[in-house]
């Protein structure tokens, strides 16, 4: 494999690597016929990211050497990122970047040709691996919205940098709402996180908005910011395809030279009855978003852990195209709940809570509870797709 990136595109590539580094610790590099793909998945498989750079992005693109098997490699994200660590330096001094993979040596060679004749060569060790691919299909998501990345970037600006999750939903007047998400346990202890932030964007700022009022999903903000910063710098439109809470949300960007997909798991809905009563019963069928990897044993008595993670598939055969199988997502485990159309008014009429403390449980039921149609979870465990198997080192 040999790819040559020229001029400003080196910085674009570097930015993409920075975005991917927000998600996972390993980078899967695979030269395909329709472009170079860079993919990663986080350790708990709750976030997947993929960038594909079309051959036209490169000055020279040679996916495979004739006579050689196509190569796929897995490389430590830290190692690859170190090459592109300083974006300012890339812009200022790097004129050309050459990435080559020699099947014989076990090294991925990245060579930066810089100003003044200076040349920087990195020989990075990698592992052979199988192709990493998430199973998802944006077309199967009933809700979507599309806006210039700048609009969404400005919307997330006020959120505290440490905020873990954000809820995206459609509110009254078809306004797109972004709200900071707080876990129930945290809010009960009012010493933690005394501030909630909400941003509301009018429908007119979106190029496309295909979702009903009341739908909402909660996902990891930090991971979303990773794609957002790339999309903003490349001046692209960002599309968000989402479904019911618990099913992954798909974020996409595209232009003639590249496309990017980020698939993030979303928080499953909790039983509104328990929270409306303000009960201390904190039975949560989902693990906290911060830690997908080890769910609480009590929470999964009947649930299938795989339904909370993004279904991943690995293939040994190389694929000519990047066409993703259109298998529907393994549905998230959802609790059916009966919507109460009057709950909204009732909540507003009730006397307000103790001044000084946020009324989070009620607040949430205002947003989610009243309008969502009941969804019945399928019986039995959802189909488990092929596990991500480790490649041979």
């Amino acid at each position, binding site marked *: 494999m040999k790819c040559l990136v020229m001029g400003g595109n080196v910085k674009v590539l570097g930015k993409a690597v920075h975005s991917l580094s927000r998600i996972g610790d390993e980078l899967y590099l695979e030269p395909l016929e329709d472009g170079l793909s860079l993919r990663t998945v986080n350790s708990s498989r709750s976030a997947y990211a993929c960038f594909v750079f079309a051959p036209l992005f490169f000055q020279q693109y040679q996916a495979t050497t004739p006579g050689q098997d196509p190569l796929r490699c897995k490389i*430590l994200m*830290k*190692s690859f990122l*170190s090459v592109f*660590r*300083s974006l300012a*330096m890339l812009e200022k*001094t790097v004129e050309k970047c050459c990435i080559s993979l020699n099947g014989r040596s076990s*090294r991925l060679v990245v060579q930066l040709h810089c100003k*003044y*004749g*200076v*040349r*920087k*060569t*990195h*020989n*990075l*060790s990698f592992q052979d691996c199988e192709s990493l691919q998430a199973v998802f299909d944006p077309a199967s998501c009933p809700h979507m919205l599309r806006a210039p990345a700048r609009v969404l970037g400005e919307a997330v600006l006020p959120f505290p940098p440490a905020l873990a999750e954000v809820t995206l939903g459609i509110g009254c007047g078809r306004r797109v709402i972004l709200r900071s998400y707080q876990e129930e346990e945290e809010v009960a202890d009012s010493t933690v996180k005394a501030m909630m932030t909400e941003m509301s964007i009018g429908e007119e700022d979106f190029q496309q908005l295909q979702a009903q009022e009341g739908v909402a999903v909660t996902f990891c903000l930090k991971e979303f910011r990773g794609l957002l910063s790339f999309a903003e710098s490349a001046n692209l439109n960002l599309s968000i395809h989402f479904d019911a809470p618990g099913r992954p949300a798909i974020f996409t960007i595209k232009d003639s030279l590249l496309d990017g997909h980020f698939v993030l798991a979303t928080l499953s809905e909790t039983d509104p009855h328990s929270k409306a009563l303000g009960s201390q019963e904190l039975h949560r069928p989902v693990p906290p978003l911060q830690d997908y990897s080890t769910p609480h044993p009590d929470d999964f008595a009947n649930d299938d852990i795989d339904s909370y993670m993004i279904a991943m598939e690995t293939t040994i055969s190389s694929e000519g195209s990047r066409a993703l199988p259109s298998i529907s997502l393994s549905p998230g485990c959802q609790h059916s709940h009966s919507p109460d159309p009057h709950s909204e008014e009732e909540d507003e009429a009730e006397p307000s809570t103790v001044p000084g403390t946020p009324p989070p449980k009620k607040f949430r039921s205002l947003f989610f509870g009243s309008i969502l149609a009941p969804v019945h979870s399928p019986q039995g465990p959802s189909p488990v797709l092929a596990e991500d198997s480790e490649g041979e080192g």
Partner: protein
Amino acid sequence: MPLLTQHIEDENDQYSLVASLDNVRNLSTILKAIHFREHATCFATKNGIKVTVENAKCVQANAFIQAGIFQEFTVQEESVTFRINLTVLLDCLSIFGSNPMPGTLTALRMCYQGYGYPLMLFLEEGGVVTVCKIHTQEPEETLDFDFCSTNVINKIILQSEGLREAFSELDMTSEVLQITMSPDKPYFRLSTFGNAGSSHLDYPKDSDLMEAFHCNQTQVNRYKISLLKPSTKALVLSCKVSIRTDYRGFLSLQYMIRNEDGQICFVEYYCCPDEEVPESS
């Protein structure tokens, strides 16, 4: 500085060393470039002050502030030597803060009475005077790397701009920094061997950054990266750097630093090699 000069003029004779600066940063900035250990040895002659810091008996950094930099500079004896806590000295020199308001200068008067006496610092800014007394210690013998120009095999002079990013981005998971200097390709190469793999930074001899290139023999030497990394500070301040190796593989880095008043000062680093013959990379 009428406040200070009047008081001290009569007492000048009792001091072995008296040095005054209108802008203390002309001293503190240079000292920061060699501040990788707590203690330093100060050596003053009528030509100026040399401050030395050493580590692991393998690396030595020297900062030269020649007499001409000071507004007043008097050394009563042949030479004056003392050991001092460099961290404390730098803290005192920047006592009025390290980010001055534009247009304000902090003035310094440094006095040393001799063996056993503390170093006195008088710092003044905007009419406010601070007096510092720092204990001095028994001077320790500094290493003599015995590096002389006649033994130099390879020498290059580079514009610092070209090395700055390279040095600040050095792969610190590598134990060594390997320096290759050769009349043939790759001419001048910096290599690291870290957890991710190896990295090589090549500077061609005809690069615009190369001010002088005098390499007679191919030499490949390795130096402990942790010992050389502190030199990045000096590199960042400097406009030019000269890199020389002698027949033993000893490395000499000399940095030309221009201070705020446009005067030139020098900082040099000496380092001995880690291994005699490196394995091929």
